[in-house]
């Protein structure tokens, strides 16, 4: 029943195949269950759910047979293990959520299941989504399915949605959910040679998603193509009264945005993104991107986003302040890990020391510090003011241009362990991605080429709030122009 040939289909193609009954949802799910098992060395999944996948596929098959197919019927996907899934172990990649089986389903995954999607399992991630490498998980690091040619050292998949990105890239999922707080969808998409979209803040509900930094957390889709991501977004998006920050904006058919026509569109090229440390190959790729869009009839415009240089420190203050508070609930009292101690204080200390990894502890400490009496004004309050200025930069810019083209990350995937001793170098990975989180505007990463050592590099399109259509349309043009056909060295089903 398992047919590795099916793994080569993208989501749109699989949907078409299911619709014309070229194969069943069960065949597809069986094939992907095998792929998930085969991809185990990548450690992309914390909890595979093969039985649930088959049950969901069978239900999809019944609807397909009756001609009552739902938009995502039979499509096997991975769920970042930050989304709470009812009665399925949900870990956030942390020891502290040991044994936690939520009694509820997150809004976004609930919408996906209601659209007919099939759950393959819970994807690995940086602990509490804190990281740019997916190496801080209690369940071990995720490996990128890509390797540098002639170099067998495992590479990071990027983070924090590294398991989701690695699974999609390795054909161990058709698509996946991710969350993006400072680049956690786009950077791993860039590192793994696939597409990742961070929607507008408020587009996808945060209800049931384990919080890292509430004002910056954006659930969004990861897929192999721009169209796949558009299809996923359509199922994930929508106003949710259970999330007070969810936007009452109607969901349109995002696939319809892929018209292939960007003539006359003004594309901003921000000079501030030419950072000193950026490799020449990324600068060159960016230039190619500008040319591709010009050839498609768009008009590149040099723009300035002067507050860009403050984005990273601003981000790390706000994100960690919120995280320090959001993670206070992991206290060993009601769920997850508890390490008994002599009295309450000691139970707290032992539980949190044992339950949180080094990066989470570091971030909770920094976040606690910046909110402390005497430091609040200098750090948190100032960061909020700068954040407002960054948002204003974008708003002003979008009066001049329709979208912005930049690289996604300042480098290709790096070797596992390479930057773990240097948190600052790790934080610099987010330099191009955090501004969109601070401003809440949509941004997408598309694989656009290979680095000199043969690894995927992404380009990023950022758009106006709630204008995912333009972002997707331009991304579609880039995708076509780049015609990125390279495949990673590890590909499920390829061994045949």
């Amino acid at each position: 029943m398992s047919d590795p040939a099916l793994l080569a289909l993208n989501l749109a193609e699989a949907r078409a195949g299911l619709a014309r009954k070229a194969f069943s949802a069960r065949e597809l799910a069986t094939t992907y269950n095998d792929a998930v098992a085969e991809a185990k060395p990548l450690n992309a999944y914390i909890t595979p759910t093969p039985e649930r996948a088959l049950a969901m596929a069978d239900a999809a098959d019944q609807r397909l047979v009756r001609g009552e197919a739902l938009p995502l019927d039979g499509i096997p996907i991975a769920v970042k293990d930050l989304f709470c899934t009812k009665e399925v172990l949900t870990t956030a990649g942390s020891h502290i959520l040991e044994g936690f089986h939520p009694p509820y389903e997150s809004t976004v995954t609930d919408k996906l299941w209601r659209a007919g999607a099939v759950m393959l399992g819970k994807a690995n991630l940086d602990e509490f989504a804190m990281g740019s490498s997916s190496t801080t998980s209690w369940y071990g690091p995720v490996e990128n399915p890509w390797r540098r040619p002639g170099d067998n050292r495992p590479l990071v998949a990027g983070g924090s949605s590294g398991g989701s990105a690695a699974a999609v890239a390795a054909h161990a999922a058709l698509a996946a959910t991710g969350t993006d707080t400072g680049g956690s969808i786009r950077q791993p998409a860039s590192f793994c040679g696939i597409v990742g979209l961070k929607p507008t803040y408020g587009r996808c509900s945060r209800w049931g998603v384990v919080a890292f930094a509430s004002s910056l957390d954006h659930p969004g889709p990861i897929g192999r193509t721009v169209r796949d991501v558009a299809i996923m977004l359509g199922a994930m998006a929508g106003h949710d009264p259970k999330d007070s920050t969810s936007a009452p904006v109607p969901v349109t058919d995002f696939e319809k945005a892929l018209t292939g026509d960007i003539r006359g569109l003004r594309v901003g090229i921000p000079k501030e993104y030419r950072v000193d440390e950026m490799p020449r190959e990324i600068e060159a790729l960016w230039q190619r991107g500008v040319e591709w869009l010009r050839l498609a009839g768009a008009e590149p415009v040099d723009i300035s986003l002067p507050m860009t240089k403050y984005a990273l420190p601003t981000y790390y203050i706000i994100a960690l302040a919120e995280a320090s508070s959001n993670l206070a609930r992991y206290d060993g009292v009601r769920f997850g890990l508890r390490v008994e101690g002599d009295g309450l204080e000691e139970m707290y200390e032992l539980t949190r020391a044992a339950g949180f990894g080094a990066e989470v502890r570091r971030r909770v400490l920094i976040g606690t510090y910046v909110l402390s009496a005497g430091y609040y004004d200098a750090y948190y309050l100032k960061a909020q003011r700068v954040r407002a200025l960054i948002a204003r930069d974008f708003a002003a810019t979008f009066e001049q241009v329709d979208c912005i083209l930049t690289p996604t990350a300042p480098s290709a995937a790096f070797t596992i362990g390479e930057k773990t001793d240097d948190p600052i170098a790790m934080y610099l990975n987010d330099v191009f991605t955090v501004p969109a989180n601070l401003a809440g505007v949509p941004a997408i990463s598309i694989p656009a080429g290979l680095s000199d050592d043969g690894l995927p590099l992404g380009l990023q399109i950022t758009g106006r709030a709630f204008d995912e259509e333009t972002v997707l349309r331009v991304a579609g043009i880039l995708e076509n122009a780049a015609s990125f056909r390279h495949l990673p060295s590890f590909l499920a089903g390829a061994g045949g």
Partner: protein
Amino acid sequence: MIEGRTREWETVIGLEVHAQVISKAKLFSGAATDFGAEPNTEVSPVDAGFPGMLPVLNRFCVEQAVKTGLGLSAEINLNSVFERKNYFYPDLPAGYQISQYQQPLVGYGRVSLDMPDGTTREIGVTRLHLEQDAGKSLHDQHPTLTHLDLNRAGVALMEIVSEPDLRSAEEAGIYLRKLRSILRYLDTCDGNMEEGSLRCDCNVSVRRPGEPLGTRCEIKNLNSIRYVMQAIEYEARRQIEILEEGGRVEQQTRLFDSGRGITRPMRSKEEPHDYRYFPDPDLLPLVLDPAWVERLRGELPERPDAKKARFVSDYGLSDDDAGVLVAEKETALYFERVAQRRDPKVAANWVMGDLFGVLNRLGVGLDQSPVAAEQLGAMIDLIADGTISGRLAKDVFAEMVASGADAAAIVEAKGLRQVTDATVIEAAIDAVFAAQADKVAEFRAGRDKLYGFFVGQIMRATQGKANPALVNQLLNKKLAG
């Protein structure tokens, strides 16, 4: 003023009252809020601080808080912000309390106090804000473990902060009673201190009159007006003693030991230091529509001060009587039902006299009164239309209390109807005169004192049912004739 060993001292008091909002659901979740439910049966995953759960503001609680603000003649802030107050404690599931800090919902207001000497004192209200209650730690269920009941966790509270305008324990008591009365009139808090729906923190300092404010101590979590007054009294004397011995008052958070009637400092572990407030990123700023606020203002029920003024002007009651009748919303409602279309002063006398006496004797509140307002009113009607005399009414009322029956039924059953037939009364007078001819002669000879004797004899002859006015009228005529 408190007389110290060396000089007089002035006590300065500010109160922070936590008033539970009357609402079926919690401030940020749909869980129920009934008092006395089984532990942990009114808890949603939001209240329990489960991962990924998000607060959604209960608009009804906002309405209640705005009504309360309007009832305190306070400014309503059209823009306010919910913030997180961070500290670790097992009964605080999220590790932070959602509260309001820099931008509260309600700004400056005031409460007017009727002082025992007949004067009025205005007490400033600094602010009112909405916040979540915490759960309850139960330390007495197990020798070594603490149990948790999260039913209260997330219940909406209004924190009402007074200015440091109060000057004695007695004033603090009057302020609390008045505030509770206003909340009950508005139906925004039931004011039930035994159930914990009204709790109070007291900030107390002392100073020599005219000097700047002294160092204050905060006494936490007092759950009765009596304790508030006792705690303030003790704390003021404690501080005065320290100062008079040349010491310095240390700023402290203290607890009241109701058993010993003293305050003691909280252990340092009980006292959190840095709450790291910041705006809750899960909630948008609270923005109110001014038209909605105005609508609430228009719909606001009458409050005790206005009601008292109306009782004085419309019913002709004295200030004191009106004050007594409006102090509790239920009393005022009861009185008005009795007074409707009747003589208000008679109604007031019956309510404050006989009825309060009975309730006191029975130890019950108005809600359990054996005599309903309509019943008391109907009895007063029987006095007014001459069916019974005021004297008989006392017996009828006693019977109403005992049996719960209506006045008219009691009058019928016991034959208590007043005799207003002049011929019957005249016959009774004639009979008395015939039997007491010598006394009649004495009276006519100038012994005026015997008049009362005749009245008594006539009343006895009519079993007390003769209309007293008619008896007087006819007796005078006969004695003169």
